[in-house]
């Protein structure tokens, strides 16, 4: 009898591993793009996605599948915040050491350069719109940016977004509405 129980546990673990693999495969590219838009850095975006996948696999693989998505985006959001905080500290140190300022200026130019990734046949309109949205999002508050990315791009509903952002559903609605208003204002010229 214990042998059957052990076998069942092993089969459950294998099924769970397969389900987790499918989930991660389905989410990784979108998560990368969202991280990339938040951090505006290719390597950092890949790092936070990898960290988030590992954290989900280690800590939440046993949770019901329907919880994985908001949990994953909550982890991703926390990782992005950590990276942004570290970057601010790094930039603060660079300001204190004038000799490093030149490197910082070079890095900023590289970081602000257009993303070379993307297929050549991509419609210019879509590329242009997304580039403008990225710039507009960079100027928003972190909460507004998160609400827009998770609700509109990732398609999380209000409840899932609230879990991912660690706030109330009412806050999600407010941040999202303000993000839309800001985007309308910033993109208004281009849209007309």
């Amino acid at each position: 009898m214990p042998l059957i129980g052990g076998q069942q546990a092993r089969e459950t673990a294998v099924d769970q591993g397969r389900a987790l693999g499918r989930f991660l495969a389905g989410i990784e590219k979108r998560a990368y793009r969202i991280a990339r838009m938040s951090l505006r850095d290719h390597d950092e975006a890949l790092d936070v996605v990898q960290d988030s996948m590992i954290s989900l696999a280690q800590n939440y693989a046993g949770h019901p599948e329907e919880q994985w998505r908001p949990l994953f985006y909550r982890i991703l959001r926390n990782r992005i915040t950590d990276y942004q905080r570290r970057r601010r500290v790094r930039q603060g140190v660079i300001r204190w050491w004038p000799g490093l300022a030149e490197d910082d200026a070079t890095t900023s130019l590289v970081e602000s350069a257009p993303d070379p990734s993307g297929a050549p046949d991509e419609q210019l309109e879509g590329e242009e719109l997304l580039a403008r949205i990225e710039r507009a999002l960079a100027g928003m508050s972190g909460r507004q940016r998160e609400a827009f990315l998770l609700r509109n791009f990732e398609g999380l509903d209000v409840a899932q977004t609230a879990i991912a952002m660690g706030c109330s559903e009412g806050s999600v609605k407010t941040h999202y509405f303000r993000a839309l208003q800001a985007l309308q204002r910033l993109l208004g010229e281009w849209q007309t």
Partner: protein
Amino acid sequence: MTEKNQDLERRSREAFDDSVASLDGATRSRLARARELALEEARRSHRPRLATWVPVGAAAAAAVMAIALWSGRETGPAPGEPALAALDEFDIVSAGDDLDMMDEDPAFYDWAADALADDVG
């Protein structure tokens, strides 16, 4: 939600979906490797959790055995002859002495048994 907002949502979502679909091969490959690493970590973190139950199970088994032995001593046969006799018989059997010798000279063993009976009698 105004029509203008809905249009912005739709168009921006389409642009985002296109950018996801057109991710370059190197990035896709890096993401796939990251996924494999995450799954491997999940398998690895699953193993120690099972391993931690082994010593717990062993300790539980030892405790059960100790309780069984203790309660067995309390409720077993009363101290004295029967228990010791049983142990003696067990010793004889487990000692593996060669009992075939009795087949070699049965007449001698019959005489020895009679002589012992006479002495006792």
